């Protein structure tokens, strides 16, 4: 069992340090590099959503990231932020069949995360957004 937690401001400049935090956890927990991608993607998509949209009209929004890996390669990441309350799991699903002229990437990030993870849960917890992603890594 391995756990790590960090806390950063909702600023795009914190994306690289957050990814380093994830990488460090991954190697400390002895997890395979080839299976890190869905977590890197989820971290960027969820964090950047808070930076771009969740902090509108607010100052000093904090984002806390907690990583957990058990002894059976079950990895869980919890991203908790004090931004505007927003449940991304109820956002409209993007039309991935639309022609090129009508395509946007709005909503695509969370759609990718939902598809690549085993489980994604949202809760509004004490005025904070709390998004939990979980995946059982291949042996």
């Amino acid at each position, binding site marked *: 069992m391995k756990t790590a937690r960090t806390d950063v401001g909702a600023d795009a400049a914190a994306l690289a340090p957050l990814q380093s935090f994830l990488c460090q956890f991954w190697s400390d927990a002895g997890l395979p590099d080839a299976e890190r*991608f869905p977590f890197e*993607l989820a971290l960027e998509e969820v964090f*950047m959503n808070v930076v771009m949209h969740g902090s509108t009209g607010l100052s000093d929004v904090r984002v806390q990231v907690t990583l957990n890996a058990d002894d059976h390669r079950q990895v869980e990441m919890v991203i908790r932020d004090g931004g505007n309350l927003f449940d991304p799991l109820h956002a409209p699903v993007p039309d*991935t*069949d639309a022609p*090129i*002229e009508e395509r946007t*990437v709005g909503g695509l990030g969370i759609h990718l995360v939902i598809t*690549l993870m085993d489980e994604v849960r949202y809760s509004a917890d004490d005025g904070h957004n709390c998004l939990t992603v979980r995946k059982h890594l291949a042996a």
Partner: protein
Amino acid sequence: MNVTHDTAQKTTTLHAIGRLDFEAAGGFQKDLEASVSSAAAAGNAVLIDCSALEYVSSAGLRVFLVGARAAKAASVPFAVYALTASVKEVFDVSGFGRIIDVLADRAGALEKVGRGA
């Protein structure tokens, strides 16, 4: 992320190396748009070699979309090739393979844009 360029056989190739995340997306978009516009002037095709592209997020996907649209508007043949497993997964889930020509290797991509041997 690093990008190197080469031009041969009436084709400009951008070799995308590293991570195309939110941070890298703005620079890559400028680079790709400039490449498409020079290619249009020279009558060249544009290819993106993704063999060393390790990571792409939705911010990075947006750049592929903008580039493909600019190429289409300028009648520049455009394709991407040699996607790594993670990048291919993102393209598949997003349905980008239906709006952008994705080829397994350079030979296939050259053929697709009409520069085949």
